[in-house]
């Protein structure tokens, strides 16, 4: 047992000097139109909204707001491209275009990662090492499938659907665009995509890449706006397939509006994943897994390990190690290469998180990492709650911030029961040195992804999706193709 008086000290001493990534190589226009039929056009409403850097609250650009008329135009352009070019193109030819997108994205990786961080607040280390390379990998991966669909569905004929309407969230703006666009294009569909209103810039940069790659006009259309724009896409009669990633509430509304229509749909919604640590786990690596599970991308991750279930005999040790580890997380300027936890994406999201912190304090004991955060911008220190239980709101509800709810368990079946006692079922994590326990757990946890001795690992070849209120359908991998084809004899 650790004695309480022996403490590690992480503050002061040798400090890392600021190491900001430079921004002089990037170009953000003062305003952006809608990318429809291969061109940037003015919105018919004439209205624009601001997109701001959440770390500084400074305005980055003005973004066009698309209304019903604009969405009509975008869907018409996508339909036309589907009929005249993309839908009739030989699959091998389609693949060449998709490979080209991937390669250009790799060439412009630095630019993409800087803009992603400026617009969304995530640490440059993450956009540089995870978001952008993974987005390019998705295009590479699905480019490879384009002319091999007969092998993906042996004995059946996979046909494209038509126009895909796609609405994506603000937590992984470019990566989510890649998840959506790459399989749609590979299967021969055309696309109308709406990025989130707080993070539209990398999707608009992607529009530039798509134009540079020489895709026929109208194959990919990117329309910006808020909720009403998204609703116009989802409800549009000219859309054959809806793909949405976002909150469970909006997902529910979409599912209602699609009821009775012939539209195919996939929904990637919320989560409240349990990270389960057994006493025989490699404790130091498990602590690292907790950190990656909940503090990665400020906890703005639908599959975040936002609940920690730790076996009682090691709970004290694990929590003490976690608190020490939290002291070494660097919170602040997302453009600094050493930053571990960046800015909260928007003032609205910060308010939401703070409301939960208030609730949590009445439900259990709150602990936050010390150290300063910048005065301007939206910030939340890494936070954990102990002494909370299944009945606590911070245990039940998705907070979508760097906030971890910690509970303990004694027996294997208790861990399973607690892990599954949630309306969500997107992901889960298991930490144990015993292989048989891993298999037993993964079979018992009702979640789309279960990681063993790691967390938040993504790969284009691996399907992703939820059980229960976490969503419908799978994206990624071979399974991800299914959402964009109709199968016939």
């Amino acid at each position, binding site marked *: 047992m650790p004695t309480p008086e022996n403490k590690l000290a992480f503050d002061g001493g040798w*400090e890392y000097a600021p190491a900001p990534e430079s921004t002089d190589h990037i170009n953000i226009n003062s305003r952006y139109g809608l990318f429809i039929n291969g061109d940037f056009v003015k919105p018919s409403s004439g209205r624009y909204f601001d997109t701001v850097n959440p770390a500084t609250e400074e305005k980055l650009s003005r973004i066009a707001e698309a209304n019903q008329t604009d969405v009509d135009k975008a869907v018409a352009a996508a339909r036309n491209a589907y009929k005249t070019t993309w839908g009739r193109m030989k699959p091998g030819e389609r693949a060449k275009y998709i490979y080209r997108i991937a390669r250009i994205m790799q060439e412009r990786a630095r630019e993409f990662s800087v803009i992603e961080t400026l617009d969304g607040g995530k640490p440059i280390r993450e956009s540089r*090492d995870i978001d952008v390379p993974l987005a390019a990998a998705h295009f590479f991966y699905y480019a490879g499938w384009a002319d091999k669909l007969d092998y993906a569905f042996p004995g059946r004929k996979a046909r494209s659907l038509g126009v895909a309407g796609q609405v994506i969230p603000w937590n992984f703006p470019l990566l989510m665009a890649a998840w959506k666009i790459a399989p749609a294009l590979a299967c021969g569909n055309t696309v109308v995509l709406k990025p989130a209103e707080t993070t539209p810039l990398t999707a608009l940069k992607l529009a530039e890449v798509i134009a540079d790659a020489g895709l026929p006009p109208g194959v990919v259309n990117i329309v910006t706006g808020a909720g009403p724009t998204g609703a116009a896409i989802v409800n549009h009669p000219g859309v054959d397939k809806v793909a949405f990633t976002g909150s469970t509430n909006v997902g529910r509304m979409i599912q209602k509006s699609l009821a009775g229509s012939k539209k195919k749909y996939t929904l990637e919604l919320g989560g409240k994943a349990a990270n389960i640590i057994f006493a025989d786990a490699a404790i130091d690596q498990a602590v690292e897994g907790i950190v990656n599970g909940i503090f990665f991308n400020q906890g703005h991750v639908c599959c975040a390990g936002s609940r920690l279930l730790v076996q009682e005999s090691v709970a004290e040790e694990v929590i003490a190690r976690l608190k020490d580890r939290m002291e070494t997380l660097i919170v602040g300027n997302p453009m600094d290469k050493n930053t571990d936890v960046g800015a909260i994406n928007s003032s609205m999201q910060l308010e939401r998180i703070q409301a939960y912190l208030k609730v949590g304090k009445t439900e259990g004991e709150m602990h936050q990492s010390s150290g300063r955060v910048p005065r301007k911008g939206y910030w939340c220190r890494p936070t954990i709650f102990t002494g909370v239980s299944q009945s606590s709101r911070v245990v039940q509800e998705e907070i979508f911030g760097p906030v971890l709810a910690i509970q303990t368990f004694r027996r294997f079946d208790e861990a399973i029961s607690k892990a599954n006692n949630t309306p969500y079922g997107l992901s889960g994590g298991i930490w144990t040195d015993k292989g048989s326990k891993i298999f037993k757990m993964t079979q018992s946890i009702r979640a789309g992804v279960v990681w063993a001795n790691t967390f938040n690992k993504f790969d284009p070849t691996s399907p992703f999706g939820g059980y229960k209120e976490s969503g419908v359908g799978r994206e990624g991998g071979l399974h991800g193709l299914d959402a964009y084809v109709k199968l016939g004899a």
Partner: protein
Amino acid sequence: MALSAVKVARRLPDLSRVPAVDEVGVNERVARFQTRSIKSSSKVEALKLILSMIDLTTLEGQDTAGKVTQLCQKAIHLHDALPGLPHVAAVCVYPTMVGVAKKALAGHDINIASVATAFPSGMSTLSVKLDDTRMAVAAGATEIDMVISRGAFLSGDYRYVFDEIIAVKKACGDAHLKVILETGELGTLDRVRKASVLAMYAGADFIKTSTGKIQPAATMQVTLVMLQAIRDFYLETGKMVGMKPAGGISTSKLAIHYLVMLKETLGNAWMTPEWFRFGASSLANDVLMQLMKQSTGVYQSPDYFSKD
């Protein structure tokens, strides 16, 4: 009498309670340390700290009094062209060279470390190892770098290894004891962690990765596992133990990664030569080159730096 003997005897720690180590996770953590970007003032500070943590080493069969004397001169005068440099923490030599080093370092605050206990293989009897240790201490060594009996450890005879360290520690007297695990021969990170615990409970003042004679020598992975063992030992007992990665660290960049790892694992208290050392022979010149570059803006030819 039997009772008091029991009272003073150190208890073999329960190695079954030592936490497991997951190699994949360790690799990931190490990769994160390596993404830290250390620039400008913090780089200069780090480089100077690294110099002060070096155990300047020569452990060759061909070592002579002349060679060791030169090494000691280097330890005192790292690069006089650049004022304000610290001196290294120690020179590290074979027991027969301790007397030479003592003479050469007279009047300077530089430790004399001597390898002992049938270094590097440790394949000898306990009495020979103890004589080896006593001889080095008598000649003036202030630090003893012993090797553990890897054969006994791998065969599961932890008691033998444990008792041997206790005996050597006793033979050290006032000299600090560094216990070399020779991680390159232990094979797994789980064994590295167990051996670290064993050595610390037996009374090691420092734990050290390698002799430098076996590949792989020090890696960030094994060093991280040892640092975590040191942390747990400290939290449990309140006793600080030092860490010395040795062999294979020859560039400033890599040494800075080690400092980042040290800072983020054990915190500031360990960021001194008292608690952290680099066992290295060629690292010093690379650090000096980097420091000159920081002060002049250009890299100088390696020929401007003395090779001893």
